[in-house]
């Protein structure tokens, strides 16, 4: 078979345009997105957006506004449904909803009955532990030994369960709305979560290299997400735990130390609180840097 491989063959697919296709050159400014500004359907107190010449987010005045404003508003008569069986069905359903009933019969077509709590968007079969437990377990893990970390985790919780109720220091208040301390040992997950969330810093200080001028870093406070905050708190707690000396041996020793540290966090004795305070102080001091000219210049770009 003779083959005709030649560069000319490829040229056939090329199309030549003599005129440029610059059709988007004259782009109109996007129309304001009305729907986004609408209040919620149930919100009866929503106001119109402020309209004035000075305000930035004003809607352009509507062209038809003059005539319609003069007209008095008349309530349109309710639409008559045709006496159709389809409509009857739909109306029945609507009435059902209005009466607060469930639109669909419970359990019809379900093999194992209805769930009390529907799984969320990101939930899956393997998510069986509370979120904090999951995260802390992974943070306890060393060398990829998850099973060991899980054992440590459950030993920590058991230790929290069996140790006597903590005495919360008024100098180190826990999260607002925390349950009374004497109820904590019977809910070790809440105990752990409360300790971690209470001691977690609200912000971190980010160093912008060389931005302060003269090679100095510009310190900027930055808020953190919940998961990030918990991670920082757990790492601080683990640092404190690593500095502690182990008094016993065996597999429960590490869990024992961690649990003791968590109790001391709740009781306000832990050094982790100082770290938190330091970060917060630094963040407060660095608040002024948010209006630093270098940063503003960068933002303007």
């Amino acid at each position, binding site marked *: 078979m003779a083959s005709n491989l030649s560069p000319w063959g490829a040229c056939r697919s090329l199309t030549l345009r003599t005129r440029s296709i610059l059709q988007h050159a004259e782009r109109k400014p996007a129309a304001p997105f009305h729907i986004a500004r609408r209040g919620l359907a149930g919100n009866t107190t929503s106001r119109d957006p402020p309209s004035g010449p000075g305000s930035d987010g004003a809607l352009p005045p509507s062209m038809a506004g003059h005539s319609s404003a003069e007209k008095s508003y008349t309530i349109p008569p309710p639409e008559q449904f045709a006496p159709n069986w389809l409509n009857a069905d739909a109306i029945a359903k609507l009435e059902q909803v209005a009466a607060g009933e469930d639109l669909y019969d419970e359990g019809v077509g379900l093999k194992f009955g209805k769930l009390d709590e529907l799984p969320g968007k990101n939930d899956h079969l393997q998510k069986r532990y509370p979120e904090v437990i999951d995260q802390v377990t992974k943070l306890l893990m060393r060398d990829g030994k998850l*099973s060991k970390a899980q054992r440590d985790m459950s030993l920590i919780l058991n230790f929290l369960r069996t140790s006597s109720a903590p005495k919360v220091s008024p100098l180190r208040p826990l999260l607002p709305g925390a349950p009374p301390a004497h109820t904590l040992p019977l809910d070790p997950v809440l105990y752990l979560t409360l300790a971690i969330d209470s001691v977690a810093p609200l912000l971190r200080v980010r160093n912008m290299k060389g931005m302060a001028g003269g090679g100095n870093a510009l310190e900027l406070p930055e808020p953190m997400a919940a998961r990030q905050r918990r991670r920082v708190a757990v790492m601080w707690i683990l640092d404190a735990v690593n500095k502690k000396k182990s008094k016993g041996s065996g597999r429960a*020793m590490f869990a024992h130390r961690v649990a003791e540290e968590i109790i001391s966090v709740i009781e306000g004795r832990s050094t982790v609180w100082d770290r938190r305070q330091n970060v917060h102080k630094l963040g407060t001091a660095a608040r002024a840097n948010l209006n630093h000219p270098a940063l503003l210049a960068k933002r303007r770009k």
Partner: protein
Amino acid sequence: MATANCWRCLGRPSTQRLLAPSSLASFRAPTSVAAFTTSATLLAKDDNSFSMKGHIRSGKRLVLGKKKKGKTDRSKPPGPGERKAFRKRIQLSNDNALKVTGLPELEAQKLVDPAAVGQIVSLPSDLVDQLRTAEAFKPTQNWGLFRSPHMLVRKDTVDFLGDLTKRVGNKETVRTVIDGERSVGKSMLGLQTMAAGFMNKMVVINIPEAQDLVEARTDYSPIPRTTPEQFSHPTYILKLMQAIRSANEEILSKEIVKLEHIHLPVSVSRNSSLASLASATKEPEFAWPIFHALWQELLQPGRPPIMFTLDGLSHIMRISDYRSPSFNLIHSHDLALIRLFVEALGGKTYFPNGAAIVGVTTKGNSLKVKSMDKALEQAAADQAGLPIPERDAFYAKYDERVFEALKGVKVFDVKSISKLEARSLMEYWAASGVLRMRVDERTVSEKWTLAGNGVLGELERASLYVSRL
């Protein structure tokens, strides 16, 4: 220049060399250098070198070199035995857990009554003390989660203990091995057996961990005038004897020494009680003779029946890690205490007053002993009236002594619990506030199924722990 004794020095060291003052360099010889070797010499580890110790976290500055060495720990190290005490600590109550009211107390009758199956009973405090002294509680069991020790009377308990107490009452010797799957409650049944022993006025001797005796952890010494040579564990036996004494004080103080003990290193008068015999010495070196004398006394007719239990049977069915003076490994059955148990289990010892010899196997911490497995298999088949399985013809390492030790024993297979038992157990957990869920048929069924159709340990793991243990 050729020396005169050049040729001689090939044959033997020259006198000049021997007489010469040994230089410092010659002292380097003791660092063991093999005369002939084909392997390369390994240098000792340089202590100054940086070693990867601990976990290295990102964002932390790595400090290399000698600066790091400056930090020394000045705090007091834990005292001897303190760390082990922490590991072995047994906590039997939890003040945070709720008090469960309305549960009956354990009586001797409850353990053999079929109507009591599925009941949770509380342990009376003096029994708890006795069991604690006998080391019947294990650190891995979940006693520490609840307000006070309670336990479930299960069907296996009633079956096993009903048979046992009846036969011991008839002055028979019960020789049983408690076997079963992992974490199915074998040690717990052992504890219940001991409880029955204490409540039925038996002399209870318990070896809580057989591996302590064979893994060369405690001291040992040869017993003179024994063939084949036997070995005792002086310190261990002394402790055991003290435990026996304090656990069975009520019985032992009533019994009076009957035999002449002229060979004993301490003087024992004829009219003293067995309790005083058991506490006759505090010297480990005299522990074995006195323990042996006590054992002989207990074997006399008219004494209370003996209950001898041992946990971790597979550990004593192998060659131990101890060495004889000729540096041979000692077989476990040549260790005197184990020999005592093994002879009792194998039916070589005659008990005139009836006895219960119970060995409990472990599955979690045990090694595979093929001889024991086969012997138990054969015993179980013999018990069920099935054809006895033959030994593997091509396995050469069968230990005859193991077969001898397990000859004619009964094997009690601990099964999983029923849903009814699981329900009452879970209701107890929920009432204690540890299991914070509604206990109805659905949840019980769910946990029971998750626990491999009612394996007790798995049921605990499935319901008591948030994360898996």
